[in-house]
């Protein structure tokens, strides 16, 4: 067997019970060209340091648990291959723009509130009545929103968004893209309700179209595009309500 190649992971450590400042800890891990960064972190957890704390589950890029900063870029660590960094060291940090719970684990509280705020569900009166069979939806109607329904809530986009880093009122890329996804769904009747939320304060207007959310999205959702489209819809609605203050609730289709 050939001498085992290794590489170095520099991992962000922070423990809320004992630390006031974060630090970096270097670990030497075996190098395997099939390994992803997550495999290396799991190897450390299993064999070297059981105190290292991170989230993961599906390791196939769809559960959205294992987003971290890898050499400064927000990445799903299950899709970041060691071979793309070897032999240089890899620096792993928790996603920026989120409070850190411990080590590589960040708090989702703010994100979950924003997700809930955009009412990401079908709103219509007969939504629980299945007697008439499925609502018809043509493939073209499906295509109008499908891309925006692919979000896995991995929150890489929030880590890439400088506005999300300092503007709490801003709902952020993933939540807005999901709101837009339901607004574009031919089965939905809730656009006016959602626009009430999106029009408020910096909720949507905080976006300055930096575009990095789209650049880092592992599922090609294009939240930046969704937000610009949603802004156009919101602007039309704003002026419509301005022009017709009464009875302007229905935003139409």
């Amino acid at each position, binding site marked *: 067997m050939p001498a085992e190649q290794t590489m170095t992971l520099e991992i962000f450590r*922070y423990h*809320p*019970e*004992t*630390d*006031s400042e*974060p630090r970096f800890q270097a670990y030497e891990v075996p190098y395997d060209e099939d390994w992803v960064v997550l495999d290396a972190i799991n190897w450390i957890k299993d064999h070297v340091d059981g105190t290292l704390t991170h989230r993961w589950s599906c390791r196939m890029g769809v559960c959205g648990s294992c987003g971290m900063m890898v050499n*400064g870029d927000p990445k799903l660590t299950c899709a970041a291959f060691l071979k793309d960094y070897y032999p240089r060291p890899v620096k792993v940090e928790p996603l*920026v*723009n989120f*409070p*850190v*719970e411990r080590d590589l684990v960040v*708090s989702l509280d703010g994100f979950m509130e924003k997700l809930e705020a955009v009412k990401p569900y079908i709103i219509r009166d007969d939504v629980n009545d299945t007697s008439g069979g499925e609502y018809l939806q043509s*493939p*073209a109607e*499906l*295509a*109008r929103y499908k891309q925006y329904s692919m979000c896995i809530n991995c929150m890489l986009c929030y880590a*890439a968004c*400088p506005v999300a*880093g*300092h503007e709490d009122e801003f709902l952020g890329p993933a939540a807005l893209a999901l709101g837009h996804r339901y607004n574009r769904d031919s089965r939905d009747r809730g656009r006016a309700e959602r626009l009430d939320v999106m029009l408020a304060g910096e909720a949507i207007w905080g976006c*300055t*179209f*930096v*575009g*990095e959310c*789209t*650049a880092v999205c592992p599922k090609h959702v*294009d939240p*930046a*595009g969704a937000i*610009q*489209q949603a802004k*156009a819809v919101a602007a039309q609605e704003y002026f419509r309500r301005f022009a017709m203050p009464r009875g302007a609730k229905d935003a139409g289709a």
Partner: protein
Amino acid sequence: MSGRLHRPQRWAWFLERPGYLLFMARELTGFFVAGYLVVLLVTLGRLGGGETAFAEWLQTLSTPGWTVAHAVALAASVWHSVTWFAAVPQAMPIQLGEKRLPAPLAAVVMGYGPWLTVTTIIVWGVLR
């Protein structure tokens, strides 16, 4: 127990990713577009001020300093326009059935195409 760690954003956040720098560059080119508009407004003002005033202004504008400034403003405006046209397919997608018009084509249809057309008309109008 120190609890959750909050890491405030650095004031120089725009240095952290190339994408942020490009964003800042795009926003800053806006000043050049605005500056060029001011020059245009002044030019119109001088035109209203009489033939002599206008001739003097044209004289001023033909100095090397102004030529350089114009060149810079032109480059900045072109770059600003290019970033806009790049954004158009994202912000105003054209859907044809189940497919979306590919981004480069959409940029041509909604950005470069109309731009070239209008420019051609103006150039034709001026050179006629």
